[in-house]
């Protein structure tokens, strides 16, 4: 890894160098009813729109790499014949400017499932390979528990990662492309004082975490508490709405639908992201539903995130971004659910 520092004034120049590409980054989405600023990832058309000091985004990056609805292939139907057209729906490289560590870690986790050696998903991989990622340091919010999930810092999966040192940025550089970009702006190697400042910033960030999840022996505890009453209690609240999976940066479940057009000359196969909380997630051919109760479905969401994935990959499928708890109208949050399963009722971060 190479390191550079550059003055904050240079950021605009870096943006301009990259702006020959599409840029996606955190932008403002107005305010909620309590006048708290809202942000989301979107295309950025002007440097001024880029909100690098954003708290968190409502939705994850999935819209760009694993869209809620995606045509996998289309067909032209002819008499006694058909032609299949496959589009990976990745047309141009996109620069992702300003991802927090949790969201980069989320991509790295998705890679294990969707870009692995055995069953790579070409639609995902095509978009993933066309990403240029600039990470940016963050300020832990009251709902962030990424530190507990080991996702508060990121070691790979980006081209460049920027840390705000006050009047300059400290850049960690992981790719030759990123290094080339920096050659277009005024930057230099960091000195001893900047090394020092970089470490201080990391320590200051660490002190700001207020929300924690105890993951000690969590896989075992989940096995032990499979029949615990708390699951039913959470299940009674759950709306089975799928919002948690929709906003989650690492939920990847989907269903595939085939439809013939009204003109009977075209057809398409479409993928829709789904959620294990939805009533028919575990319904199989013939109509049997393995998880007809919302508490079972909710439980399995936690089992996949915090147990199944850990067994398969030795890490959790949750990065602790807190989006699901924020978006859940029934106030079902990961820290509280895990605490209740551990027998710590009334735990609030």
């Amino acid at each position, binding site marked *: 890894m190479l390191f550079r520092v550059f003055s904050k004034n240079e950021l605009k120049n870096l943006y301009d160098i990259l702006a020959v590409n599409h840029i996606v980054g955190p932008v403002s989405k107005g305010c909620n009813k309590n006048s708290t600023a809202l942000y989301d990832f979107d295309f950025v058309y002007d440097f001024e729109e880029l909100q690098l000091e954003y708290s968190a985004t*409502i939705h994850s990056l999935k819209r760009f790499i694993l869209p809620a609805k995606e045509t996998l292939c289309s067909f032209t139907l002819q008499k006694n014949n058909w032609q299949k057209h496959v589009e990976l729906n990745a047309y141009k490289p996109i620069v992702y400017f300003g991802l927090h560590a949790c969201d980069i870690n989320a991509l790295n986790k998705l890679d294990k499932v969707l870009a692995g050696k055995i069953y790579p998903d070409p639609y995902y991989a095509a978009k993933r390979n066309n990403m240029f990622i600039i990470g940016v340091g963050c300020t832990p919010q009251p709902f962030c528990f990424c530190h507990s999930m080991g996702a508060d810092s990121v070691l790979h999966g980006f081209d460049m990662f920027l840390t705000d040192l006050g009047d300059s940025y400290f850049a960690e550089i992981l790719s030759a492309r990123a290094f080339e970009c920096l050659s277009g702006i005024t930057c230099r190697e960091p000195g001893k004082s900047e090394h020092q400042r970089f470490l201080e910033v990391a320590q200051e960030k660490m002190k700001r975490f207020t929300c924690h999840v105890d993951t000690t022996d969590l896989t075992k505890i989940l096995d032990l508490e499979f029949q615990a009453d708390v699951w039913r209690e959470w299940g009674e*609240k759950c709306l089975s*709405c799928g919002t948690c999976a929709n906003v989650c940066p690492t939920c990847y479940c989907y269903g595939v639908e085939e439809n013939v057009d009204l003109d009977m000359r075209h057809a398409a196969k479409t993928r829709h992201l789904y959620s294990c909380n939805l009533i028919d997630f575990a319904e199989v051919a013939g109509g049997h539903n393995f998880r007809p109760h919302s508490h079972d479905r909710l439980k399995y969401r936690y089992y996949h995130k915090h147990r199944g994935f850990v067994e398969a990959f030795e890490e959790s499928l949750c990065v602790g971004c807190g989006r699901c708890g924020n978006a859940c109208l029934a106030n079902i949050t990961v820290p509280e659910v895990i605490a209740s399963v551990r027998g710590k009722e009334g735990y609030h971060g």
Partner: protein
Amino acid sequence: MTASEKTYLGVPVRKPRAAFFSLTSCEGCQLQLLNNEATLLDFLSLLTIVNFREAVSERSENYEIAFVEGSISRADEIPRLKSIRAQAQTLVAMGSCACFGGVNQLKNRFSDLDWVKKQVYGDHPIETQDVLPLSAIVKVDLNIYGCPIKKEEVEKVITNLVLGKSIDYPQYPVCMECKANQNVCLFDLGEPCLGPITRAGCDSWCPSNRLGCWGCRGPAETANVRQLKQIMREHGFSDEQMLDRLECFGGFSKFINELKNQ
């Protein structure tokens, strides 16, 4: 285009004889079908339409599929619906009025029907009774939800009917589509919404236009109405406000007493 010309992968497609009927309604659902001019001809070419007041002048009582919009609000509509049922192999309830009673059933809220008549029709009363959905009188084979129905959904249903494919509706609530559309949740903006309990399929039509859902498609396959009442309260909305929405289209009627008694 004639019947013999319509093929799917070279296999001739049989065009079922279809009729469209209107009971008590605004006929908005029928108009909705005719709305999308780009696909209208393809739509009409999939069916042999023998009765469609809004679109064709031909009339025949020989049909296999009956699309019925509207609810029952007058005694003479009952024998009419029964005779449609007797003729049709497949009876489709089209739109919220047909599925649940729709906006019309709001008048069932008032115990004094004469007073309602007086308010609506003044000195020219017409015969009217409590509003019922089609399923209260006859067996309904297929529901197409919405007020109005979503044209794209009907097109899909008809294509699948003609091809003999199964017809599936979203079982999940509107929130699923709302999140897919990247909307900011209306509760965060201080507005109530029935999206968490209402069946999806409208592509979150209202929330995507910054209006809370009023539940026109009726309950999702699992609808946690009790929890939504709690959520409404936490966000400062009264039980009355929620009831107004739940009662608007009639889809939630089975939940209403339970909710009032809570």
